[in-house]
């Protein structure tokens, strides 16, 4: 079974281009702590073109959290900004990049508003 986090990053990698990040440039490192292990994801964005890898490279913004919490983000159950304010999601470096990146997380499943058909 593929978990929400892996699925999120894999889909992002396959997409190759993300219109919501059309004007964005930068690299975001995501460090996910799971017990004693830390899993690294590195997302490079170049005007919407996206590359996802497991490299542990130099990033403009580093996000660090428990893997479980990131699963919640990837499923639309957790809000990134609230998590950051609570201190459960750590951010270092360019905060603007996280604000832009969080556009990619889905919304809650139970949302009622819909665009016009």
């Amino acid at each position, binding site marked *: 079974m593929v978990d929400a986090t892996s699925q999120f990053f894999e889909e992002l990698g396959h997409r190759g281009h993300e219109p*919501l990040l059309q004007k964005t440039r930068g690299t975001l490192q995501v460090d996910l702590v799971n017990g004693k292990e830390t899993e690294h994801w590195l997302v490079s964005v170049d005007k919407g073109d996206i590359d996802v890898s497991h490299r542990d490279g130099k990033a403009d913004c580093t996000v660090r959290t428990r893997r479980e919490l990131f699963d919640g983000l990837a499923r639309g159950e957790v809000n990134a900004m609230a998590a950051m304010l609570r201190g459960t999601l750590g951010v270092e470096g360019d905060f603007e990049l996280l604000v832009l990146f969080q556009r990619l997380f889905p919304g809650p499943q139970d949302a009622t508003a819909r665009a016009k058909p």
Partner: protein
Amino acid sequence: MSGPLVQILDGNTFVVSDDRGDIEASLTDPTGLFSFDTRFLSKWVLTIDGQKLNPLSMDDLNYFETRFFLVPGTGTVYVDSKLSVIRQRAVGNGFHEELTILNHEDQPVELTVRIDAECDFADLFEVKDALEKKGTYETSVDSGELVLGYKRETFGRRTKISSSSPGRIDEHGITFELRIDPHGKWTTELDVVTALLLSGVTHERTKHDTNGRRRKSVMETNLERWLEEAPRVECDWDSLKSTYRRSLVDLAALRFSPPIAGGRSLPAAGLPWFMTMFGRDSIFTSLQALPFTPELAATTLRALGDWQGTRVDDFRDEDPGRILHELRYGELPAFEERPHSPYFGTADATPLYVVLLDEYERWTGDTRLVRDVEQEARAALNWIDEYADLMGNGYISYKRRNEETGLENQCWKDSWDSISYRDGRLPGFPRATCELQGYAFDAKMRGARLARRVWKDTTLADRLEKEAAALKRRFNRDFWVEDGEYFALALDPDGNQVDALSSNNGHLLWSGIVDKSKAKAVARHLLGPRLFSGWGVRTLAGGEARYNPIGYHVGTVWPFDTSFIAWGLRRYGFKEEAAQLAAGILDAAEFFEGRLPEAFGGYERSVTRYPVQYPTACSPQAWSTGAPLLLLRTMLGLEPIGEHLVIDPALPAGIGHLEVLDIPGCWGRVDAFARGRVDVRSGRGLRPQLGSTTAMQSERSR
């Protein structure tokens, strides 16, 4: 608590104290040191030998710095004091306080000086709503510092207090046992540092300019530069010059640099509750300030664009393309007990975002920014049609999805009773207030211009113009109240008119949605006895069932509202009427020493003779601060056309000449001059009153 509240601030950090410099807050009392929407000090009381001090005088040195002169003694009659105490406080990150005690006697004195400190770490929302805390407090004395802390799960906030002179620190404060020589003095520097614990890492906020004095001078230089770079105003009416200067200084104080803006600033909404990014307030204030400080608009557009909604989230009332209402950093948003992370429940900020973008480009010619936020502007335009038309009738309407903590009224008149029928009944939801349709029309027209000029997308431009024309046609049919000759305040869920007469009609002129043939009737109402108080335009007309001259959105005059109405009158050629509104508000500003409150009473000017401040109005308030700036623009008739600034002045009676020098824009810098019909007699404080309900002069202006 003695005496008036004193406020000093820097960005979203501010101190509210009494006139001795003491802070003694209760849960519901808004005094304290606040930062990032959290109170970091709720008690800060100075005593000498167990006695509080008496205030002699107080100097606001700057918006970020105050000096308190104090003497010991408890009586009401001043007795020659043998001691003077000076507290000089500057807000930076936390605050820095220099405490000096002077001994005027020929004898040495021995004193016990004590600072009591406490903190409740209340979230601003808790202070407003008097809620209980859920976390735990921890206090410690650690290597010469008093550390006050609060923790709830992973959420941590801390206040560190230290002194340059050695004192005895305990868990409730610092004590100094002193001996001061004859005619000698004693000084200590107290530092209060705020810290946020984020993911186990402590983020202290004083470390770039640790020394309070250095920090201060950076802020001083910054303020001086801000004032130097703004245009100069010359006028034979001194009050206007001082109102202008007050506005610039207050606007500097209200600047707020959100963590994503790379040190650039946008206007926060107001003090003390609203030192944060608000979609509506930041946009309106940026619009008002465009001819003077266009950089505020640029930051507003970038920051609001970054935070634009991208998903459907009922708790936050978020939709794709929606521009945020309010962003907060405190404990309640952190634990999702309030939705402000950010909250999106506003129906006007999204179309206004496009309006600001176009107006900004027209002034500055900065097409690069228009290209950078193209996607956000397109998404905003898309939101109007795809997500905001809740009734499927082609109009923007609102109904909150967060029933518990969301906002009921998502227009600028956001109090519970602001939208009513003539007879006082309140409509159900969704509500389509009229000004929203004006903003949508304007956004489409301006979006079309940007699409054609910058994005090179004529298909989009054509479509937007077609939609705008259709919207205008429908609107002038559906909202027009035939028997009153004005536009209804809203349409209710059944599509019926919410038929009260309100100031919103002025925003419709500003947006351009009003048919030319109807404009004269609308202008007549705006300057007529039911809406015009003599100082400005009442939010709700006299004679409506809910009219109340001190009702928040049902009868008070809001200077910001009137300033946009003046702009609207200019748009339809009513120059004299616009000048009359400018005169009323600027006269009122003189009574408030240049600092217009958020709102003042809608009483008839001829009755009260002075503007009566609304009881709990927040001050300084960004869009009130911006009102005189916009009124300068409307009096001079400033309009950017291509690479030129067109000047078409109409001054109110009583202003002889007015100059605004070095107006920045895509033309470089230009000067604007205007001459009035009447010169001010020298030595007179107030210009002749313009009368409360002088007959309209629309014939002359057309």
